[in-house]
């Protein structure tokens, strides 16, 4: 098992477009790192560069301290699981699993031992003599994972492995891959566009956009301390609500005022220092859906702000209810426990928890850091 280091890695295509721009990531031994971002953000290209399927235009990639830029894929000691499984359709499951081992001249006994072991871990014992077309989606996915496991590589690379599965299976495979990670003690680089997958599986998440790394952090830190508006919006479902506004200074106190002046409140002191230091005025107020509550009688505390908003749509999900409303032409989503009855088009008062708010500079979109 091994550590992977990407040093200022870029991918520049012939027409000068930068698919990956100066990416630096340190992946520790046995770490489960998830690359996440919207489509076209360069996450898959980054993975393919680690695999050796794409040339590295600039920078270096090291596995176990050794620069592997010019090594062909087979000599990098990696295994990759593809989005469409990429099973060899004319071979049985056994032959699929054995293919890489045979090419590496393992002896028959060893191949059989490894395949049986992998089949046991993945529950594929019964299907070894079947062809891929006789397997279900989940089983194919397992074979694809098995093909990686039998090789016992230094690094496992997963390229959106679950996106072709239905929702239920995806949840199941998600936990299975997490279990495998613990069982094998493997270093894993995992690419997905699904932030839920990223949050649930990763030890460390790399959020990418337009070829650049936005933030590398643990799932909780990403959620609670996103570096910028993009990360704040991308991580979390439903995503964070934003209200455009500005910060006003009055009597040495900071106030937030929304663009159409329907919301004004005193900003907690923790924002004071950074706001004054960077003389920030135009901001986005960010608030997560679960930190907005419908006001019931006399429940307001000092730490809460009232937001009046017109309800557009109510989505009862059973265990919770999503309320879509508009405030100054911006959509606000709030999440409520249990079932909630309210009328469409009614104007309701919502409470925002001041301890949970974020501010983002409109110019740089960076979060105003508070410690």
């Amino acid at each position: 098992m091994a550590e992977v280091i990407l040093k200022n890695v870029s991918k520049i295509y012939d027409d000068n477009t930068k698919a990956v721009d100066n990416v630096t990531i340190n992946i520790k031994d046995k770490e489960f790192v998830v690359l996440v971002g919207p489509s076209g953000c360069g996450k898959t290209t980054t993975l393919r560069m680690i695999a050796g399927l794409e040339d590295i235009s600039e920078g270096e990639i090291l596995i176990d301290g050794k620069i592997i830029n010019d090594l062909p894929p087979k000599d990098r000691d990696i295994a990759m699981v593809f989005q469409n499984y990429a099973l060899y359709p004319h071979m049985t499951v056994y032959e699929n699993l054995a293919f890489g081992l045979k090419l590496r001249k393992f002896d028959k006994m060893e191949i059989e031992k490894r395949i049986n072991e992998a089949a046991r871990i993945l529950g594929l014992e019964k299907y070894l003599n079947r062809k891929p077309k006789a397997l279900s989606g989940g089983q194919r996915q397992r074979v694809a994972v098995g093909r990686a496991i039998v090789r016992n590589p230094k690094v496992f690379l997963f390229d959106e492995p679950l996106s072709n599965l239905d929702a239920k299976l995806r949840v199941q495979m998600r936990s299975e891959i997490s279990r495998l990670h613990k069982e094998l003690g493997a270093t894993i680089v995992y690419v997905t566009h699904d932030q839920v997958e990223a949050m649930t599986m990763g030890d460390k998440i790399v959020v990418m956009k337009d070829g650049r790394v936005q933030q590398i952090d643990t799932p909780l830190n990403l959620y609670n301390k996103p570096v910028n508006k993009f990360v704040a919006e991308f991580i979390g479902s439903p995503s964070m609500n934003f209200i455009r506004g500005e910060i006003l200074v009055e009597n040495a106190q900071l106030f937030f005022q929304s663009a159409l002046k329907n919301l004004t409140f005193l900003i907690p002191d923790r924002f004071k220092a950074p706001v004054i230091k960077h003389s920030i005025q135009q901001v986005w107020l960010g608030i997560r859906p679960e930190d907005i509550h419908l006001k019931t009688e006399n429940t307001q505390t000092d730490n809460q702000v009232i937001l009046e908003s017109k309800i557009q749509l109510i989505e009862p999900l059973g265990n919770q209810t999503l309320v879509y409303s508009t405030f100054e032409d911006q959509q606000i989503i709030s999440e409520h426990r249990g079932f909630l009855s309210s009328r469409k088009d009614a104007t309701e008062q919502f409470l925002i928890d001041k301890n949970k708010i974020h501010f983002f500079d409109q110019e740089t979109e960076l979060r105003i850091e508070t410690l």
Partner: protein
Amino acid sequence: MKRILLHTVLIFIAVITLIPFLWMISASFMFDGHASVFPPRFIPDQFTLMQYERLFERLSIAQNFINSLVLSLLVTVISLAFNSMAGYAFAKYKIKGKNKLFNLLISSMIIPAQVTMLPLFLMLKWMGFINTYMAIIIPGLANIFGIFLIRQYCISIPDSLIEAARIDGANDFLIYRKIILPLLTPVLATLAIFTFLGTWNDFLWPLIVMTDDSMYTLPVALANLMLEHTKDPELMMAGSVVTILPVIIVFLALQKYYMKGIMMGSVKE
């Protein structure tokens, strides 16, 4: 009612198409002159193999048969190998100017074969291959239609299969041999039929490049037979049976792949 009508029409057409074939087979088993009596007979009065004996013993058609068989098999095998490699490369390799080169190749298909015959003949003569097997094998080494057919089929093979094999440790030839070729089976079978039939049935080119009787292929030999034995329809029919029999066998053997090949591309799985 509609079905019955349809089937009647189909059976009628099938019978019309098949009668000459059946008569050919039947006549080849008749004694001299029995095929030209009036009214015509469809079943021989007396069954005989004498026409075949004459073909093989007196006219050394066995040699022509072997020529045809060896040439057709060789051309089929060799051209399948080259076409599949070229088609695979055109479909999957990243080569600068690849598509331009391919378009150039495709556009050369509009040149009629007859136009190229003379220069080709001169080239082969210069190489010293006239009246040898090479004169037929070399022009058939690869053909653009075959490359095109395989390229189109190859495009539908996902890149990730090739990448997975590369990560698994396969080099380019192994990927071609172990992954691509097995997946190409249907289109290879189709192309094998086309190539085999084309070479087997080709008349003009062998006539041009072969000068010895012993080097003739079956169609050429059969044509000579017709000139020499115009009055023996039974003998000519026996020659025709010998000529088309292997073709029918090849077609029937590969038919199930062939049907797959015809349908490919029309329906996405």
